[in-house]
Structure formats: C-alpha cells, structure tokens
C-alpha cells in the first residue's frame, strides 16, 4: 500500500492505496464519489473524465498514486450548491443528455475545453470531444450545449 494525499472537490484526503488502483476506482470506492462512471476498459469512452490540476484526464487511465499531491475535480464538485455550473445548465437546456451515463465525462471534458478555448467552433468542439463516446444523443445537442455554454461565458 502507498500513502497519498490529494485534494478532491476542494477537500483534502489522505489514503493508503494499492499501487495498482486506478484513480476512478479510488474516487468511486474509497471516496464514494460515484458520479464518475466507467464505460470501457481501453480508455476509449471518456465516461470517467475528471479534472486533475485543471486538465481533463480519463481517470481509468491514471493510477490513484499518480494523483498524489494533485487537485482533482469530479462532476460532484462542479455545481455551487443548487446552482448548476454553466456547462451543466447548458446540457440541461439543450437536451444534451438522455441516459446520463456518459454525461459526467462529457461535462468535465467540455469544462476543460472551454477553459482552454472559450469560443470554439463546431469543428473544434467535435475534435476536442473526440475522446468521449455517447450512444444516445448522436452528439448533436452536446455540441449545441457546448456552444451555448461558451455563449454564457462558461
């Protein structure tokens, strides 16, 4: 076991983890943050996307020990109380989610995209979200939601 300390959604945590434990299972099973979903085992689908030090990361593709000393933000850390983050609000208003399973990953990837590029074109949005898969929406409304969030100054 290895000792790590990290900040998750603004709270500090210290934990003993198995060196082979993936960050996503650390978040889900050790911290009980079950909003981050697992959709594949080949780092293809992006359902597990979180922010590590502000950058979007597939948390199934990083070990918990690699997050030692980092600041992690998960979907649970995005809203301010009752107020949704502008990207969450845009996903709601544009009907950019159906079954909701890919949604946390898409929202986190979109937050990361807009931090880097506040006014992306459709092609830039589609390119930036290439690492996230959705079977329900056909992506149309997800792209609309990211544009709407950009307009809202997310």
């Amino acid at each position: 076991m290895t000792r790590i300390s990290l900040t998750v959604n603004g709270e500090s945590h210290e934990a003993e983890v198995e060196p082979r434990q993936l960050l996503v299972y650390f978040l889900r099973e050790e911290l009980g943050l079950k909003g981050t979903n697992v959709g594949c085992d080949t780092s293809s689908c992006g359902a597990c996307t979180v922010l590590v030090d502000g950058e979007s990361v597939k948390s199934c593709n990083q070990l918990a020990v690699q997050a030692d000393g980092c600041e992690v933000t998960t979907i649970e850390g995005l809203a301010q109380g009752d107020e949704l983050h502008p990207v969450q609000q845009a996903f709601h208003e544009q009907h950019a989610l159906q079954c909701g399973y890919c949604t946390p990953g898409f929202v986190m990837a979109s937050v990361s995209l807009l931090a880097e590029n506040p006014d992306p074109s459709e092609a830039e949005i589609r390119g930036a979200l290439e690492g996230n898969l959705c079977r329900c929406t056909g992506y149309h409304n997800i792209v609309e939601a990211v544009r709407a969030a950009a307009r809202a100054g997310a």
Partner: protein
Amino acid sequence: MSILGNRVLRTEDGRFLRGAGQYVENLPLDGALTATFVRSPFAHARIGEIDVSAAEALPNVQVLTGADVDLGLFGPPPFPGLDAAMGRPVMATDTVRFVGEIVAVVLSEGRAAGADAAELVAVDYDPLPAIVGPAESAKEEVLLFPGSGTNVAARGGAPELDPTLFDGCDVVVSGTVTSQRMAACPLEPRSAAAEVGPDGRITAWLSTQTPHQDRLVLAGTLGLDPAQIRVIGPDVGGGFGAKMVSVEEILVVWLARRTGRPVRWTETRSESMVGLNHGRAQELTFTIGSDRDGKVAAFRLEIRADVGAYPGLGAFLPNLTGLMSSGVYAFPAIEASSVAYLTNTTPIAAFRGAGRPEATQAVERAMDTLAAELELDPAELRRRNFIPKDAFPYTTASHAPYDSGDYEGALDLALRAAGYDDLRAEQARRREQGGPKQLGIGISTYVEITNGVDETEFGEVEITADGGAVLRTGSFSHGQGHETTFAMVAAEQLGLPLERITVVKGDTDAVAAGTGTYGSKSLQIGGSAARLASAEVVDRAKKLTADYLEAAESDIVLDPALGAFHPAGSPAQALTWEELASRAAADGQLAELRAVHEFKGAPTFPFGAHVAVVEVDVETAQVELLRLVAVDDAGTLINPLVAEGQVHGGVATGVSQALYETFVYDEDGTPLTGTFLGYAFPSAADLPSWEVVEMVTPTPRNPLGAKGIGESGTIGSTPAVQGAVIDALAPYGVRHVEMPVNGENVFRALQEAKA
C-alpha cells in the same frame, strides 16, 4: 393551453448532471460478494477438466462451474418453430459455442480479487471446428447441436420460390445487401445485484429495459413463484434493445440464493462486447421486377439470418423483416422468405431497429438498383411506386396493416430541405471537373412498425392526499425521458402542473404490471394507458365533486388551467385538486381518486424520408458525410425536444452502420473487434450535425395519435448514406458497395470496377 407539444426540459436531468444517477453499480449493498465470470476464448470447443485450485488458493475466493449449477436451460423465447433443444445452458457444461460463453464464476471480496482469481481458473478446452456466417452454417459439415440434426434454427415465409413471380416484367434486377453484425454498446455496461431478504424474498437490481418481464424469466428459470422476486430497474445507462435478462442476471440471483449473501456483478466493456447479444447480421438477396416506366410488379426477398450460437429473438426477427419488406411501396406481389442459421458467435437479438432496418436496407437498395438500371432519378422511381396518401389504411402484399402515412409528402419535405436540384447540379459540376472529391446523394424513404405484436401496457394514476398525482407505468425509461413525457400526458388530462406529478416505474413491487421498453412502443401504449387512467381519475373526481357540492355529476367540469372542478357556469364553487383530495382523505374516500388502465395497442407505422450527401475521395477511398436531412413522422409529438433527441441518436446509429461499425470474427470465430479499441464506435468528430425536419401525421390507433420514434432515425438513415456513397461512385462503374461504405470496402469496389 395544453402542455402537450411543448419543448419541455427534462425533469430527470438534475441527478444525471450532478453525478447522482442511481445506476446498479452505484448501489451500496454492504457485504456483497463480487461475481466475475470466466468466459471461453474458443468459439467452439469441448470442455475438459476445470482446475479451480489455484484460484481458490487466493483468500476468500470461491469458484463455481457449470457442474455446480442446478438450473434448467435458458430456453429460446416462445416463438413458434424454435427448437427447445437448442436452449442455452445458464453456464456451459460440456461444450462452448461462442467466444464469451460462461464456463465458471468466481466469487470474491471485490473486483480486483475477482479479476486475479478468474485468471487462475484453468480450463481444458478441446477445440472443435467453428462455424462463422450463414454460408458455412448451411453446409452443415459441423453441427452446433448434433442432436437436432441441423444448423437451421427457424424458417419463415414462402417455403418455395414462385417461378412465375416476375413473368411479364420488362426489367428484373437483383442484388444482395449484407446488414452487418453490430454491437449494441450501451454506455453503461450491464450490471446486476441480488439480495435475499430474511423472509427468503429476493430483490434483484438489474440494468435492464424490462423489469417486469425479467421477473417472470427469473422465476421460471429459478423455479420460483414470481411473487418471491422483486426486480428493480434503477437508472439504466442505455439499452438499445440488448438489455433484457440473460444468463448473467440469472446466475447473480442464483448465487445470492446459494451463498446467502448479496452478490453483485458489473461487466467490463470487453466482456460486454462478446457477452451482450449482438444485432443485425442478415444477408438479404432481393429481386425486383418492373415495367419500362419503373412501375414495380413484384419483389422477392430471401433472408439468410445469422442468429449466433443460441436461437433467441434473432431467430424471430427475420419474420419482422419479411413483414416490412414492401417498404413504402405499393408492390402488387411480394415473396419474402427467411432461414435462420446457427453459428459459433455471440447470439443475435434486438438492436435499435431490430428486423426493420434490414427490410429498409434491402428494399431501398433494390429501388436504387432498379433506378440505375432504368436510368431514372431515384426520387422519381420512388414517386412512381409510393402507396398514395389517400390509400390508408393499407395492407401490403407482405401483410403489414399500415395505419396512416404520406410518403410522397415526406420525400418532398426532405428533398426541399436538402436542396436536391442544387445538389445534383453540384454533383454534375464535380463529375465534369473530374477531381478526386466526388459528391454523392442518397435517398431513403421508409416505413417501420412499432408495437409490432399488439402489446398491452399498464398505467395507474392515483391522487395523493396533498392533491398531487402519482403515475405508475409499466413502461420503462433507460434514457428516453419518461419522467417528463409521461408526466406531461397525465398533467394535460388532470390539469395539474408538471411538478405535482410523480412518475413511478421500474419496480415490480411499486408497479403492478408492465412490459418495459423496446420496439419504440412506450408512448403509444404506455402513454395511452397513462392518458386513459388519468381521464378515468378525472371522471371519478367529477363524481366526488358532485357529491360534495350536491350537484349533478354530469354538470361538473374540470378547469384544466386551475386544476379545479366546478359545476358548469359556477366557477365560484370550484374545488381544487388540493381541496378535493384533502376532503376525500378526511372522508376516507381518497382511494376513489385512483384508476388503472391496461391499454392494448395495435401496431403503428412511423415513416419518413432521409437524404444524405457525402463526399468520397476516389483516390483515398475516404468518405465524409457532409449532410443528413431527416424527415421522421411519428404521429403526434408529446415533447418535440425529446422526440428530436430520439431522432438524433437514431440517425447517428444508422449512419454509423453505413459508415463505421461492423463486428468482425475471423474464420475461427475469434472476435477481431471485441473492445472499444477495435470496434468503430463513432465520436462527435466522425459525425456532422443533423438536419431534422418535423412532419406529423397522427395515427388513429391510439388516443394520443402517437407512433414510435426511438428507431426511425436508425432505420431511415442507413440506406440514404449507403446509397449516397454508391451514387458518388457511379461514374466509376461501381453499382454496389458493402457496408460499412468507407475505406476498405470503397477501395475494393473501385478496384473491382476498374478490373
């Protein structure tokens, strides 16, 4: 003003957006054992000794094999003609018949320990020759079930070809379309958990589309009374036809009973790619005959369906394909026949469209092939053969009882939105210039069937003491937005605001009956049941109001804007739902404000027209889909926002069959696309935005006027895209390209045309 027809934002969104979705894997279930399945890496093999000693040497690990399982076969569904002897063992005992079949299960404390132990289970396999594809199966050199004496799981339709079918035709053309095998790929892999209560009653949480039906299957397989089982479908991350109870869920429940501890299982994606039923996998040979003007006289469809290793729904679906073989056309004579073949591959069942995409792909390719032969514009050939709008109700020569439609109207809308004439002019310009990037335009006009087997759905509406309402529906949502749409249906009838209505679904203890959601039938039967139960509650409320106000029942009206009842012309006497419910509760009469309706629905026939525009680089064989215009008419729309979402997702899947996805086995039956790395699931970067055009032709077959919308986009889009790519390559002598029409298949078609 009615809430129906408004773009109401979904009320269920909040929990998903906040990461609080209640998926099965998120259930706490303290003290649960984790089940990890050991699956066959061979497509066809005899099982020899299974050595579990190394696995069980790990702490707290137990391994069970097929010899330990005291359950009967997970038989084929009760469709006529299926051989019960081809039933599937819940766990393989002597023979495995596809890669992914379960041979053992590990019980452990947690996921990682289970994965470690599963790797240590040593299974002796004696490989047998494997059958891949209908052609190999038909040779019957190897039989999957030697005792049955055949690899044919089912036959359907015309037993013999009519040699005179095309007599008198001026032109007869034929061809073959392969509707390739696809993986359903719901983003949430399957997950199941089960717990036996102190009273011996079982609770099973399943990632499923069909909680009530699953309870019956579980009870039947486990030899239990259904009343001993409670099935809960919590939030489910997509299903697409594939998520209904299968052997894994049966084993999880069986293990919970056997061990006396809660048991849970969540499949990995790579496990899901071979363990979850696949879809499509039909080869369809069409022959079409017409006069010189393109008026079709006869159509023949011969279907060779690959049903995988065990016959299930996939052995029945070719019948649906045959039923829908006429498409939107008034063909005077149709001969459809099918043979369902066993192969050493993952079983075939429903996947978004389920039997109807195959029919549309065949008839639309036939029409394009005939148009090319006659040198007619494909839109014009379709116009000459449409069932006219004044012909409904109309029964096709393939015996499908169409309800309502305007097929030419849909095509007109789609062509206008696409700018068809301008597109043809641009295509001519590019052909003239002769550059590498050629334009292709594809048209698909389609009709499909929803609620195809006249199912019944349950609805119950109950007014609560505080004047709100609870709607219990036997329908189920695994992403379709029932909590909003079904509440809208009840709200409109009851005159209550949306937020006063709670939709309850997916719990067999909370909802008395149900069939679940598949085949795009939710709204038309579940929604109709909700509407009629709501209407009955309103009638009951009028009666109660009349009692309280000492007025005549026939005088009482509901003011839907206020949610209040009063005698006509005397609004001052109004009783609101809140007042009525509170008085009824005080009088012990609240139960009067409750009604159940089981709505038996007839099939409805959504239709539409899609136009695809592609750019094909004839040097690199790369295809880019530039535009897809979709007109999908599903009758009356309750929530256009949700309906459009269904179209978007449906179109993406149909386009993806045309351009990207194919589940491939090598000749030994080993999957070559068994992970998300190998399987071409498209991302946002691979697809354009969709151009959706609304069209509404209500059906007379239910009180909502609604048809199904979940699969239309999938059914309509595939042939448009396939046709567009072939259209782009027509000047190069290409007459057909197999799907996916991209890269390798395009390159081969160009090479063959050159040769």
